């Protein structure tokens, strides 16, 4: 990363090496980083083993000169910020919390507690990432595996609708394509890699077989594969429909049925396009069908560092993975009804607490317009469009760089973080705990919100 190295200062003497640190930029959550930390400059100067994205993550998260708290744009103390935030949440009739994918589980647990206490609504970035895969999972289940199992055993690796070379660069090299494993002694030579996408991407060269599907026809292609795997007929115009010839499909089916251990990785090319959860469901179903012939698993390639942790925390505390509403004093789940994009676009929420995410730049216009109308509390390590429109904004320390805690890799494997250097900013967890205590105090005794 030449740009970053240009801005890197001359090495000072007060250096620290952190071994086996974890990168939380993407869902790969690689835990083999060797960080060189300049303790005087409060920055990471070297991140051995990191990919291009990881290096940017480590190098760019320095200590910025920002106020810890701004209320209505004016600097305030942490206590004032937490007081104000608690008051906003308690005053609201339909308060929401959103984000949470870039903070550790310890913070996520407090966020759910707050929403349980105030009978609010909690949702994570899962809903606009692999939420549809979560819904598909609820419909058909999933055959899955930890990434180490894929490294050790997978001789057929299929990526569908994803571009790991640019979104998860080490997915190929650390987990699924090139590494040698217990039963894959020669690494990539022992695997067949298939890439299915609407366009050629920087990931394409890694594939032994590239299948280009017409945009928006993934479901049809998956469905045709399912039918063929089950020995059923498919319509003759399949190539016209999907852009993929019958010969390619037959070849793929044979490879899938005959492999020793197959894996289907799915990207957001499936979850974010027409069909959404049904696309994911088709992948899960295809993998399940294939288990009649061999061992086959399917996995979403999840995005943010701890979005999987968010799913897990929200699920164990409420029973549901995302989009959970506590208005009635117990959790309820209904994507589309309680998911953030929807409650904002419909103008339902009357206060929002945004933790470690940026809906004001990622959401649809209508949703952003409503966010601009209501009191927003935000916590982020950097300035974003969301922090800019917030009434109360907290500048927080960066997880994995300044703070510890637990994160879950995309395959649900939990990992503890090793912070590199201290930050003067509070952690998400500390801010959330402060707000939680205040909210509980405001709602103690007779004012306690109970079930209705």
């Amino acid at each position, binding site marked *: 990363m030449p740009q970053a190295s240009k801005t890197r200062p001359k090495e000072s003497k007060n250096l620290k090496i952190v071994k086996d640190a974890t990168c939380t930029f993407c869902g790969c959550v690689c835990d083999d980083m060797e960080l060189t930390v300049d303790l005087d400059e409060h920055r990471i100067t070297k991140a051995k083993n990191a990919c291009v994205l990881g290096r940017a993550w480590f190098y760019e998260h320095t200590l910025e000169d920002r106020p810890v708290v701004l209320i209505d744009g004016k600097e305030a103390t942490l206590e004032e910020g937490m007081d104000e935030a608690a008051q906003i949440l308690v005053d609201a009739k339909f308060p929401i919390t959103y984000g949470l994918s870039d903070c550790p589980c310890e913070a996520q647990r407090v966020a759910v507690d707050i929403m349980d206490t105030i009978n609010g609504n909690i949702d994570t970035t899962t809903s606009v990432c692999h*939420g549809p895969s979560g819904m598909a999972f609820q419909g058909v289940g999933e055959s899955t595996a930890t990434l180490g199992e894929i490294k050790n055993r997978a001789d057929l690796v299929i990526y569908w609708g994803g*571009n790991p070379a640019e979104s998860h660069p080490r997915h190929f090299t650390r987990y699924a394509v090139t590494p040698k494993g217990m039963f894959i002694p020669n690494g990539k030579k022992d695997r067949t890699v298939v890439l299915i996408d609407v366009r050629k991407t920087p990931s394409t060269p890694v594939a032994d077989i590239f299948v280009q599907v017409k945009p928006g026809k993934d479901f049809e292609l998956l469905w045709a594969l399912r039918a063929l795997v089950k020995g059923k007929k498919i319509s003759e115009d399949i190539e016209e429909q999907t852009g993929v010839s019958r010969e390619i499909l037959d*070849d793929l089916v044979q490879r899938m049925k005959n492999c020793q251990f197959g894996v289907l990785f799915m990207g957001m090319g499936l979850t974010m396009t027409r069909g*959404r959860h049904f696309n994911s469901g088709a992948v899960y179903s295809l993998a399940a069908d294939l288990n009649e012939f061999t061992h086959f698993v399917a996995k979403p390639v999840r995005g943010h560092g701890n979005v999987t942790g968010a799913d897990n925390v929200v699920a164990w505390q409420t029973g549901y993975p995302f989009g959970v509403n506590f208005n009635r004093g117990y959790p309820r789940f209904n994507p589309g009804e309680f998911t953030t*994009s*929807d409650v904002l*676009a419909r103008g339902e929420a009357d206060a929002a607490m945004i933790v470690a995410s940026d809906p004001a730049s990622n959401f*649809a216009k209508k949703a952003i317009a409503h966010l601009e109308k209501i009191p927003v509390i935000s916590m982020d390590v*950097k300035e974003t469009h969301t922090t800019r429109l917030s009434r109360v904004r907290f500048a927080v320390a960066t997880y994995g760089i300044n703070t510890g805690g637990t994160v879950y890799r995309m395959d649900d494997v939990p990992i503890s973080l090793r912070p590199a250097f201290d930050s003067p900013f509070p952690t998400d967890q500390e801010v959330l705990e402060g707000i939680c205590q205040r909210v509980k105090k405001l709602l103690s005794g007779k004012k306690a919100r109970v079930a209705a």
Partner: protein
Amino acid sequence: MGLSAPPFSLLDFIAAKHSRIRTVATMILVPGRSKKQGTSLNKGKLKEEYLTVTTTAEMNERDMRRLKLSNGDKIRLKSDVGQAVVTCMGKKEEDLPSGMIFIPYGPSSSQLMGSDTAASGMPMSKHMEVEVTKVGS
């Protein structure tokens, strides 16, 4: 062994439906991640690099010729719900199918995205139909 689907042209298909072609065309916008988007994001979403990355759209060179566009030209993308002006960059024909535009996720792609999630929580973030107009060089 490298099997590959034959090239096909969305644009040709769409062109048959829309008579006014040349400088205006309806195309499929596919926002996604890119390395540059990922690295610039770490610098800050309000920083110039991120803004540049997320307002640069890739287009098949053949489509660009047809629309009389050259690298660096500004185009307006217009969807049912909004519009955004971005810079266009050419891609080899074999790398990006005709009729498709790729843009890294960011505020521009969000502007074009509808809010309907079809009861899933997920807005249609990829695969949006947009109208492309040249606005300047």
